[in-house]
């Protein structure tokens, strides 16, 4: 019986949940990869057109390896994903057009894929320790019995006193083992990785609440006035919802200068510890930008909250909602009447209704310009001339004048590095620039691509221009160390 009810419940979830749908679809590899590449990480909200362009470029490459429908472009894919609840569309604030970002469901699905790919052993010592600590704290804080609570606090103090006494008497400092420290960092990062999903969910929920409050005002009749009264009195309904209160507590903790300074210095100390050398660059980056990311995201959500509250207040105070209520009923009535009317008319028949345009057709004789027949006069007849036989050597010289001869430069570089590292200046001393400044430019281009650049020191390079005048310049030292293949 329970199995059946569970099965039915899960079946509903599997069918209705967008994250589940994404995971079950055939193209999950491609969807997850494309979404993660373009909307994961830092660039979370992208202009729709930019996203289409980026995905279209990727699709060309993906088609070589995957069997994708030829005709389907990025726009069509994104439309599907939006339909499936994986992308959220928003009107851009500054510009025309819209932006796309991952929905909470897509973030959750991508997290699952990530976790499957790099499983984190959840049975770590640190996980157990933090679980135990949290449970202990919960038990303590939820205990109504003063004596027992006092007892626990005293025990804690005694433990601390003992530790202080031990250290004061010259006891050895016990630090955690590097491997276990790394394990704990991994555990913290694992929890931090859930934050984007949480933020997206909070924002989506606030938008939903805003819609609900507005719809409630619009649908409600005047007898149900508590919502309207609340807004009138300046109550921020969204902020005072359960979700809102949790979020406000979160941000005030985050914006508390003392707390965030402590957090920041803690993060810095952890990164300075010896064991932190074992962290990957990406992990270090996440830790370092942790606080900033949190602040940015919560400021943004806070901004959205403020906008909702302000517009709700205006909506109520200016009695817009009453006008909209009336108008909505009128529109519904008119549309219903139109259904009846449609049986008696044709869609293209003129009605007695006119609309004034809000623009002037501006045109003046002044914008006309005279027609000059000479502009269109037929040109003289063209003579055909025989193409001369081409001298291949002449063509080669011509090509050398217009193009940098990279072949020659690469040959010189490879010859030089056979005897050890060489700078551009040393190369030019051995093989003078045959194409003048173009050879020097060519060498710099090669050095940027294949060599090392030391911007702190300069060297003098000399060459003879095509016009036979000697020239020289100071450039940062570029050094070739290995062959160019």
């Amino acid at each position, binding site marked *: 019986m329970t199995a059946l009810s569970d099965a039915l419940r899960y079946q509903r979830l599997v069918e209705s949940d967008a994250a589940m749908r994404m995971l079950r679809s055939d193209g999950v590899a491609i969807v997850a990869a494309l979404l993660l590449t373009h909307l994961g990480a830092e660039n979370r909200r992208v*202009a*729709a*057109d930019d996203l*289409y362009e980026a995905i279209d470029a990727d699709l060309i490459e993906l088609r070589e390896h995957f069997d994708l429908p030829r005709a389907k472009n990025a*726009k069509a894919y994104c439309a599907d994903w939006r339909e499936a609840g994986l992308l959220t*569309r928003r*009107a851009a604030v500054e*510009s*025309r*057009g*819209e932006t796309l970002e991952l929905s909470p469901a897509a973030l959750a699905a991508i997290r699952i894929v990530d976790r499957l790919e790099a499983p984190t052993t959840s049975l770590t010592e640190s996980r157990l320790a933090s679980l135990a600590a949290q449970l202990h704290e919960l038990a303590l804080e939820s205990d109504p019995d003063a004596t027992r609570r006092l007892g626990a606090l005293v025990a804690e103090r005694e433990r601390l006193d003992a530790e202080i006494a031990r250290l004061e008497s010259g006891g050895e400092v016990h630090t955690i083992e590097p491997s276990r420290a790394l394990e704990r960092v991994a555990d913290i990062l694992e929890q931090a990785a859930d934050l984007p999903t949480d933020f997206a969910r909070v924002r989506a929920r606030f938008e939903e609440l*805003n*819609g609900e409050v*507005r*719809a409630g005002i*619009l649908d409600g009749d005047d007898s149900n006035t508590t919502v309207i009264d609340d807004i009138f009195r300046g109550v921020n309904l969204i902020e005072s919802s359960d979700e809102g209160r949790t979020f406000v507590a979160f941000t005030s903790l985050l914006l508390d200068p003392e707390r965030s300074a402590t957090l920041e210095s803690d993060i810095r100390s952890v990164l300075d510890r010896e064991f932190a050398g074992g962290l990957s660059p990406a992990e270090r980056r996440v830790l370092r930008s942790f606080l900033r990311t949190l602040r940015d995201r919560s400021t943004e959500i806070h901004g959205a909250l403020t906008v909702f509250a302000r*517009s*709700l207040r*205006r*909506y109520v105070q*200016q009695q817009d909602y009453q*006008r*909209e209520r*009336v*108008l*909505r009923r*009128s*529109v*519904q*009535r*008119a*549309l219903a*009447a*139109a*259904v*009846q*009317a*449609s*049986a*008696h*008319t*044709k*869609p*293209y*028949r*003129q*009605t*007695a*209704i*006119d*609309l*004034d*345009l*809000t*623009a*002037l*057709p*501006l045109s003046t004789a002044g914008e006309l310009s005279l027609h000059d027949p000479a502009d269109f006069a037929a040109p003289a007849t063209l003579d055909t001339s025989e193409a001369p036989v081409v001298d291949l050597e002449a063509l080669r010289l011509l090509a050398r004048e217009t193009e940098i001869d990279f072949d020659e430069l690469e040959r010189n570089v490879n010859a030089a590095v056979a005897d050890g590292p060489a700078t551009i200046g040393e190369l030019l001393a051995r093989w003078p620039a045959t194409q003048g400044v173009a050879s020097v430019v060519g060498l710099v281009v090669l050095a940027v691509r294949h060599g090392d650049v030391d911007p702190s020191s300069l060297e003098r390079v000399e060459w003879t221009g095509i016009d036979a005048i000697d020239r020289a310049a100071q450039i940062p030292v570029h050094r070739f160390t290995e062959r160019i293949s």
Partner: protein
Amino acid sequence: MSDDTTNVDADVLDGADGDTARTSLWPGDSGVLADGSRRALLLLLKGPYLSGVERPRSWAALLADERAIRSRLHELFLDLIIDRDDEFAFVRKASTAEFEAPATVRTVSLTFLDTVMLLVLRQAMLAAHGERRVIVGKDEIFDQLRVYDTAVDPVGFEKRLNSSWSNMLNKLRVVHTSGSGDERVEISPVLKLLVDDDRVRALEAEYRNIAQSDEPDAIELDLEWSER
């Protein structure tokens, strides 16, 4: 009132006498508005509306110089409508009561499908719950309009839908493309004021008229004539 007039005259004289740099933008220019105000005026005339979000400088100039710009528009028998909350402004034929004013802006007569499409767009604005910018897809709007297809010819109806859609875009300019092609458009905030409760009621009355004028034969004849 008479004070106002003298002030304006003094301004004009000032411009002609010494302080030419303030209003005169090119040799021989006799305009009295500052550069920004003139641009705002031109944007208003070119239509369909001046958006404070898209053109903050012209918007600021309009608010600062509202009286003078309004007066220039009155000289063209036009009225200025400003929505300060949603930050947009547009021009409308001045309502002149008994006085007969020449028409400065064109008046377009609407087909049955045009009117219904306007209503559906207006409804979409209501459903957006106060979003500042309302962006809708062509498909969503078309889907809501298919109930009004009573003919046996779905291809023909699709054509009508498209022609009404391009009317909304190009002629009435109550929607404009949002950058990703014509499939998704932003509904112009002006529609809020163009399709108000009075107009919706007028439309409803018109629909009831049509439903009562049960002369299908006459309509058919009329159509054949007008289509030729």
